[in-house]
């Protein structure tokens, strides 16, 4: 089957040719033009050749006959003319004509048109007379003056016409051949192009149907349009697959994270409804609010994350990172200490303000501290470190907990990608996702390292 690019449902349009038909037409046209030009050239060449030959023969013959006339006069010429005609030769013209064009002797039309007569003509091509068969075809002839009369010699363009007929047949053949060749080329080209495009279309169709692993085969590093199409499309599909996976992880994780507080909310609401003692009932209602707030907080964080990924930089202000860290330390040191851990602040960067989003950066750092609190275990320490080199500014939170195995770090960075072991602690997944989003917003990234033992989580941003 000829691949048809219009088989996909499209909007109703005025009639238009399919690509296959267009390519076929183009191929036919090209073949036709090239064949016809060739045939026309051959045709012209043959015509010129035959006319040349005729001219030569005619002039030779008339020269010979004129010399016969000179030596023997008209009677000798008449005899020579009678002898010159071979039996069955109907195209020969050989006659003595008087001044008015009337044939006196020989073969030829009764009344010969002498163009420009009585001027002798060396050689011309044209209709020689008004009566058949001379009027039907052109003739090549010469007119010579012999005394008061004229000698007309030449031939009807018999041979040449035959040639022409042959040429015409050749032209028809060439046209047919061009049509066939054009169709064939059109078919082959559209087959090939269609095959490659259909491969792409199949992949897109597969992806649309849900199989995101499909890719277009192509020559890696190839430079032609098809290779570029394949590589661009594959790159796009890679990104799409990554985004889809991320989205699925987000949705799954979010649904999972939301389930537990909602389930608790529901059971507490149920318990409150069933509670008959007013005081206990009020207490149960209070519990409902706590759970509702937790869900609200998750939603707010989620919005904050998606905002952070597309925030304009006009929200940024010039901030002294040292002051920023000190404020956080002041706020969190008692919290960490109350949790039974020691809190250390290490400020290694000395000077220089940076442009950043103070609130979001603070929130991200406090999220890291919260995370450390949750996972470091009691009796351990948490360190908040600010360091800076020529290129980078690091807001770093170090704990002495169990850390994260190297293989799991990529997963930990993924939104909601909470490690299974930590699934029982509520709400941690979103926090790290927000940290990463904030780091990205500042043109940096979240880095996880081994603190041997424990985890080093650092927000690394470029030092402007």
């Amino acid at each position, binding site marked *: 089957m000829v691949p048809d690019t219009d088989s996909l449902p499209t909007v109703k349009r005025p009639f238009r040719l399919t690509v296959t038909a267009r390519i076929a037409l183009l191929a036919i046209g090209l073949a036709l033009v090239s064949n016809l030009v060739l045939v026309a050239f051959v045709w012209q060449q043959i015509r010129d050749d035959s006319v040349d030959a005729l001219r030569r023969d005619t002039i030779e013959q008339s020269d010979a006959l004129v010399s016969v006339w000179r030596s023997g006069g008209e009677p000798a010429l008449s005899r020579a003319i009678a002898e010159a005609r071979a039996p069955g030769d109907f195209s020969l013209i050989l006659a003595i004509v008087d001044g008015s064009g009337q044939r006196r002797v020989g073969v030829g039309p009764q009344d010969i048109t002498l163009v420009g007569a009585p001027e002798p003509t060396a050689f011309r091509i044209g209709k020689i007379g008004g009566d058949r068969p001379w009027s039907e075809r052109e003739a090549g002839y010469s007119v010579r003056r012999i005394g008061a009369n004229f000698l007309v010699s030449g031939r009807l363009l018999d041979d040449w016409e035959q040639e022409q007929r042959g040429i015409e047949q050749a032209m028809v053949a060439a046209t047919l051949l061009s049509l066939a060749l054009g169709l064939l080329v059109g078919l082959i080209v559209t087959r090939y192009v269609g095959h490659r495009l259909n491969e792409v279309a199949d992949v897109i169709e597969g992806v649309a149907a849900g199989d995101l692993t499909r890719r277009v085969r192509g020559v890696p590093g190839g430079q032609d349009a098809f290779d570029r199409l394949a590589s661009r499309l594959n790159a796009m599909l890679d990104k799409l697959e990554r985004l889809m996976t991320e989205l699925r992880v987000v949705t799954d994780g979010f649904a999972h994270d939301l389930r537990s507080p909602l389930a608790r909310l529901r059971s507490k609401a149920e318990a409150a409804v069933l509670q008959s003692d007013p005081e206990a009932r009020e207490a149960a209602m*209070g519990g409902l*609010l706590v759970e*509702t707030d937790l869900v*609200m*907080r998750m*939603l*707010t964080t989620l*919005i*904050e994350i998606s*905002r952070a990924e597309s*925030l304009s930089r006009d*929200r940024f202000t010039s901030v002294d990172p040292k002051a920023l860290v000190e*404020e956080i330390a*002041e*706020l*969190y040191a*008692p*919290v960490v200490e*109350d949790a039974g851990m020691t809190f250390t602040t290490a400020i290694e960067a000395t000077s220089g303000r940076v442009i950043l989003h103070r*609130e*979001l950066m*603070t*929130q991200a750092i*406090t*999220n890291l501290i*919260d995370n450390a*609190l949750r996972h470091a275990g009691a009796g351990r320490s948490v360190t908040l470190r600010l360091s800076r080199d020529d290129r980078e500014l690091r807001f770093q939170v170090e704990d002495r907990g169990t850390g994260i195995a190297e293989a799991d770090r990529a997963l930990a960075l993924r939104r909601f990608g909470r490690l299974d072991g930590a699934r029982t602690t509520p*709400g941690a997944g979103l*926090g790290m996702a927000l940290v990463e989003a904030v780091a990205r917003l500042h043109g940096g990234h979240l880095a996880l390292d081994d603190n041997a033992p424990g985890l080093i989580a650092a927000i690394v941003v470029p030092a402007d």
Partner: protein
Amino acid sequence: MTRKILIVEDDAGTAAYLAKGLGQAGFSVETAVNGRDGLFLASEGVVDLIIADRMLPGLDGLAMIGAIRAAGIRTPVLMLSALATVDDRIDGLKAGADDYLCKPFSFAELFARIEALLRRVDLAVAKNQVTKLSVGDLEIDLLARTVTREGRSIPLGAREFNLLEYLARHAGQVVTRTMMLEKIWNYHFDPGSNVVDVHIGRLRRKIEDGFRAPILHTVRGAGYRLSADG
């Protein structure tokens, strides 16, 4: 004297809920359903507080506040919004709102903030440059930045002093955790852990341990209240 509150809110459900709650709390309430009406009522200058939704039909909430401020009306405005991110809050405050509260909110939080706003106006009207605050037997010297209770000096850190000063300025009123985070630490996000409780706990130990009566009370489901009488 009954305080008059103007509610500018296009959502009828929320407006009715607010009007009912505020009415029960003893406020007289007037409502407007769009920014234009809100601006008109506000410019009459007889309301004590405006509660405005951020997204209103016609004249948007931020624009309405801008117009009110441009007209020289200093009535405190509490902005309500479903937009909850840090930047949304900051935008609201920049536009001229005195406070910003995200939907859904608890009535405890709303009352605390309304009380705080009205108190601020009273203080401004009184124009008395206070140098000393006292709550029961607790004395705060704002100039020397010293605190004494029952005549005994209590050493406090700078942030603890700010916290106590804020509580004392709103003595007898409920102050919520988010209010303290916003006013003392200038953070407009919800840290999620009990940071404020920890700081209050420390402050409480300093001003209550070894003294006869508690003075910093926890209001369940709402926040804290500094008050001599339980």
